[in-house]
């Protein structure tokens, strides 16, 4: 997360984009480009695809800036949502499972499973979400993190956690319900 996240005025930048100010879009790119590319890369897992996602997302931000309503949600969240959904659409549209061979996927999953577990321990900055996730059992927590951070489908979560598909669906359902109750 950029250090100066609190000081950067996303709402003002988006308002300037809506007025056709391309320097504002460039400021957003300079401030968040690295981190947004990181978010996209975790989901689509290929650098060229991730860069295409970031390109399309910035064009989309530029075109939709006028429809962004600062009263409904903070600009930062909106920007990250645009990038994530662009990445998820690229991923779900491309049937990644077929493209990656089984061994490569296993290796990737093991490496990333470790990273996720370690990172989760370190991220006290996630605030209330961290506390609520910490109250979930590890199967539900890992299912949610695998889906959100790594773009895992139901079957990928099942494979990674070595669990039946039905269990994964139930974990996600109950995990989300518990998170909602915990966070309000």
């Amino acid at each position: 997360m950029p250090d100066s996240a609190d000081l950067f005025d996303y709402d003002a930048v988006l308002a300037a984009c809506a007025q056709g100010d391309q320097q504002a879009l460039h400021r957003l790119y300079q401030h968040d480009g690295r981190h947004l590319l990181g978010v996209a890369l975790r989901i689509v897992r290929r650098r060229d695809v991730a860069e295409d996602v970031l390109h399309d997302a910035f064009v989309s931000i530029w075109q939709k800036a006028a429809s962004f309503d600062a009263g409904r949600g903070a600009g930062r969240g909106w920007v990250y949502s645009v990038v994530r959904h662009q990445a998820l659409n690229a991923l779900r549209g491309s049937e990644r499972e077929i493209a990656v061979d089984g061994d490569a996927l296993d290796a990737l999953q093991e490496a990333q499973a470790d990273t996720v577990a370690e990172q989760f321990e370190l991220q006290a900055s996630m605030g209330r979400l961290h506390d609520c996730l910490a109250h979930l059992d590890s199967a539900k927590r890992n299912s949610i993190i695998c889906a959100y951070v790594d773009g895992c489908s139901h079957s990928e979560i099942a494979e990674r956690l070595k669990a039946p598909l039905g269990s994964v669906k139930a974990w996600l359902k109950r995990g989300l319900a518990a998170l909602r109750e915990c966070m309000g």
Partner: protein
Amino acid sequence: MNETPDQLQQLAGEYVLGTLPAAARQEVEQRLTREPLLRAEVEGWERRLLPLTSLAAPAEPSTGLWLRIAASVQARPATAALRGATVPVPVKRWHRWWDDLRLWRGLTGGAVAASMVLALLLVSRPSAPETAYMVVLAAPQDRGAGWVVQTSMKRQLTLTPLHDTVVPERKALQFWTKAPGWSGPVSLGLVQSNRSLKLALDKLPPVQPDQLFEITLEPVTGSPTGKPTGPVLYIGKAVKVM
């Protein structure tokens, strides 16, 4: 819709998590435009889960990415503004499009576009002292940027694609230039649709401001006449950088 509030929350949650298959994702995206309740649930989940984005390690974008973005957004306002001024395609003889007033009128916008892309490029890459001229080659129909030309003091020219150009079978892309005062365009050779091209300009006079560069669609071995014979796919004017 017939869902219970719990089902609606679940659907919104799984949409934001990203676990819905492609068809279900599209359905939710369509419903979001007309269902405020679903939209509110989705926004709630976006807000709750946003801190998880901090788990992804940052990655350095390649240097050309901002240029691509700038060129794409640059093309957008011009598209709307120039919608009334389309260039007829295909044009049979080179001097017809070359002298076409509408094309020149469009290029004024293109030059503005090129200089604005440049301004943005210079902000992001202040250390490019060797670049002397830059041209953004845009499609005459919709002003969509397709290629970037950069020339250096050392008389080197680089042509870089911003995206793939689909070339029909038995056709090729040919690259041309014409400076003000020249009697006609000079071929700079055939180009591959998705490859960068480097050229030495030692056989031509130095590049001038407003010198035209363009790519036309030609027979697979190139124009048989030595002048452009096919439609103009991309065209732009040189802008001095330093």
